[in-house]
C-alpha cells in the first residue's frame, strides 16, 4: 500500500517523475493508455494558457478578480484523470485545470471569473459542485456526497479540494472527521502551494506535514509530489480503490507551489523571495510531463508548438465569446432565489421595473 510505503510521519514523499521528467521509480509508473496521457498533458497546457491569458485580460481591465492556478496543473489533472465519470469533484476555487479535465468548458469557467453565475451552472452529469470560496466549507459537502453514495450503494467517490491554509479551518477538521467516522468514500486533496495569500504554511500548522493529520483521524494519508501528474494519479487510484471497498477516506497532500499571486488583487513580491519562485519554476509540472511524453515518443517539440498555438487561439476566441455575454439581465438575478418567486420578491422586482421605466 502506497500510504504505508510513503508514510508521511517518516518524511516520505511519493514521486514517479523527477523534475526533469525522468522516471525515478519504475515499479510505480502507472499503465495509462496513450490517449489518456495526451489528454492529461493537453489539459494541463490548456489550463496554463487559459491561466496566463486570464491574468493578461484582468490587467487589461477585461476580466475581474481571478485566482491563478499556474504551477498547480498536475495536482489537479493527475487527480481527475484517475477518477471515473460518475465520481464527484468538490472544488475550492483554484482548480480550473481539474475542472477542465472533468469536462467543464473553458467558456463557463471564465464566466465565473468574469462575474457571471453562469460559471457555476454546470451540467448535472459533469458532477462538479460549484466553486467554493468560504475556506474549507466544501470538505463537509464532499463528506455528504460520499455519505449519499455509500448509503445508496452507488459506486462513486467524492474528491474534495482544499489548500494548505484551509487545513487550519474548523470545517476541514469537521468534514474529514465526519467522513472518517463513517468510512465514507471521500478523497481530500490538499493543494499545499505553500502560501495562503501572504501567510506561509509554517504559520498554519506546527505539524511537519499536512498529510500526517490523517493519522489522528484514523485514516490513510500520503504526501505526494504535487507537480508530478503520475504520482498524483497513482495516489488517487489507490485511494479510490480503498474508498469504493468501504475502507474510508484518504488525505492526499500535493506538494506544489503557487507560481502566481493569490488573486489578481495580490502582490506576492511583498512577502516572498524571487529565488523561491525560480526554484519552483524549474519544477514546473508541464516541463517534466512534456519530457516524459517526448521520451515515450508520444509527443514532439513540433507537436507542442502547434498545440500551444492552437490552444492560444482557442483561448482568445473563447474569451471573446465570454465578453459578448456582457451584463446579466435583470430577471436573471431574481430568478433563482427560490423555485417559485415569493410574492414579496416579485413585488420588489415589479417596483424596480416600474422605476426603470419612469427613469427613462
Amino acid at each position, binding site marked *: 500500500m502506497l500510504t504505508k510505503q510513503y508514510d508521511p510521519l517518516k518524511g516520505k514523499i511519493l514521486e514517479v517523475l523527477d523534475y526533469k521528467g525522468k522516471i525515478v521509480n519504475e515499479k510505480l509508473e502507472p499503465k495509462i493508455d496513450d490517449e489518456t496521457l495526451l489528454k492529461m498533458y493537453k489539459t494541463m497546457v490548456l489550463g496554463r494558457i487559459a491561466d496566463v491569458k486570464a491574468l493578461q485580460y484582468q490587467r487589461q481591465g477585461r476580466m*475581474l*478578480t481571478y485566482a491563478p492556478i499556474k504551477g498547480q496543473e498536475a495536482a489537479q489533472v493527475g487527480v481527475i484523470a484517475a477518477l471515473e465519470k460518475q465520481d464527484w469533484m468538490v472544488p475550492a476555487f483554484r482548480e480550473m485545470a481539474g475542472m477542465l479535465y472533468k469536462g467543464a468548458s473553458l467558456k463557463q469557467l471564465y464566466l*465565473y471569473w*468574469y*462575474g*457571471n*453565475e453562469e*460559471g457555476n451552472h454546470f451540467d448535472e452529469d459533469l458532477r462538479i459542485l460549484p*466553486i467554493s*470560496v*468560504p*475556506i474549507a*466549507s466544501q470538505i463537509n459537502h464532499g463528506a455528504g456526497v460520499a455519505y449519499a453514495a455509500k448509503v445508496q450503494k452507488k459506486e462513486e467517490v467524492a474528491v474534495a479540494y482544499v489548500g494548505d*491554509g*484551509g487545513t*487550519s*479551518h*474548523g*470545517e476541514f477538521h469537521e468534514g474529514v472527521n465526519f467522513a472518517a467516522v463513517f468510512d465514507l468514500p471521500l478523497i481530500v486533496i490538499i493543494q499545499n502551494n505553500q502560501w*495562503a*495569500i*501572504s*501567510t506561509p504554511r509554517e*504559520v*498554519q*500548522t506546527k505539524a511537519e506535514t499536512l498529510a500526517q493529520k490523517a493519522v489522528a483521524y484514523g485514516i490513510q494519508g500520503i504526501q505526494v509530489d504535487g507537480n508530478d501528474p503520475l504520482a498524483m494519479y497513482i495516489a488517487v487510484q489507490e485511494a479510490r480503490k480503498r474508498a469504493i471497498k468501504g475502507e474510508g477516506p484518504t488525505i492526499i497532500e500535493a506538494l506544489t507551489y503557487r507560481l502566481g499571486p493569490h*488573486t489578481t*488583487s*495580490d502582490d506576492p513580491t*511583498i*512577502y516572498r523571495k524571487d529565488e523561491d519562485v525560480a526554484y519552483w519554476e524549474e519544477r514546473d509540472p508541464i516541463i517534466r510531463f512534456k519530457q516524459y511524453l517526448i521520451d515515450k515518443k508520444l509527443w514532439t517539440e513540433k507537436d507542442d508548438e502547434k498545440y500551444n498555438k492552437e490552444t492560444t487561439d482557442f483561448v482568445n476566441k473563447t474569451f471573446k465569446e465570454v465578453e459578448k*455575454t*456582457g*451584463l*446579466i439581465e*435583470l430577471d*436573471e*438575478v*431574481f430568478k433563482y*432565489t427560490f423555485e417559485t418567486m*415569493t410574492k*414579496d*420578491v416579485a413585488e*420588489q*422586482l415589479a417596483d*424596480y421595473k416600474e*422605476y426603470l421605466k*419612469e*427613469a427613462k
Partner: protein
Amino acid sequence: MPVETILSAITNTLDEQMAKDDTIVVFGEDVGFEGGVFRATKGLQQKYGKERSFDSPLAESAIIGSAVGMAVNGLKPVPEIQFQGFVLPAFNQIVAHVARYRTRTKGTYSLPMVIRMPYGGGIRALEHHSESLESLFAHIPGLKVVIPSTPYDAKGLLTSALQDPDPVLFFEPKRIYRAFKQEIPDKEFKVPLGKAKVVKKGTDITVVAWGALVREVEKAIKLLGDDINVELIDLRTIQPYDKDTLVESVKKTGRFLVVHEAYKSFGPGAELISTINEKAFLYLEAPPTRLSGFDITVPLPKGEHHFIITPERIAHEIKKVVNF
C-alpha cells in the same frame, strides 16, 4: 492637520491607540507582515512587534474565539475578519460568547474588543465579498455595531470603540476606503458611539443612511437641486442607534426614508421605521419608507448593477415620498 482617507485614518488610529495602550493586539489573516489585504494594519507589526500584530492561521472562529480569551486575560484584542462574508464561521463565537459574556458572568468579564471587518458591495468583487450583514449582528443583544462614512468619523468612532468597555463590531465601507480625503486632527479625539450626525439640515424629508450610501444620498440631494430640502442623517452607530435624533428630525420634516444596501426583509430599515411609527406617527405626512437591497443574494459583478442603489434611484424615491 493631516489629510486622511478612511483607510489611513483607521491605520493611524490603531497606531495612536497601540502606542498609548500596550494591551491592544491586532491580528487576523494576513494582518501582520503584510498589513492586511487592504493594508489597514500596515506597519503595525514593524512598529509594535509580532506579539502585538500578527498573522493568524486561516480560521475565523479561532480568530474571534481566541479574542474572547485574550480579553478575559488582560489584553484588548482587535481582530480583523478579512471580508464580512467570511465572518460566518465566527458567528457562533460572536453570538454565543462575545455578546453574552457580560450577562452570563454578571459583569465579571466584559470582553472589551473591537472586531473590524470591511463590508458592502459596489467593488465588482468575487462571491462573498459584497455583503452588508449589519442586521444579523445588530439583532443580537450585547453587540454594538458601528459604521463610519468619513475619515473623521473613522478615527473618532474607532477611538471610542477601542476605549469602550464592551465589544464593538466595526464595519468598514470598503467601497469608499480610499474614495476621498479629509483633513482630520492629529491628536486623539472621539466621536461618541450611539450618536447620529445631521450631515445636512433640511425641512421636507429626513433621509437616513450610513457607510458608503451617505455619499450616494449626498449625490441624490445634488440631483434634486433646490426643489426638495432634504435633512440627511448619518446613523454612524447601528446598535445602539440614536432614536432621539431621528425622531426629532421626523417631527420637523414629517417624512422619513431610510436607505441601506442590506437586504430588505427584517433589515435595519424595518427597525428604524418601527421606531418612527412608535415615536412620531402623528407627525407623518407620508408612509415611512425604505430603499434597500433586494431580497436576493448579491449578484456577481455582471449583475451587481441591478442591486446597487444609485443616486438617481435615491432621488426618485425621495420625490415619491415627498409627493405622496
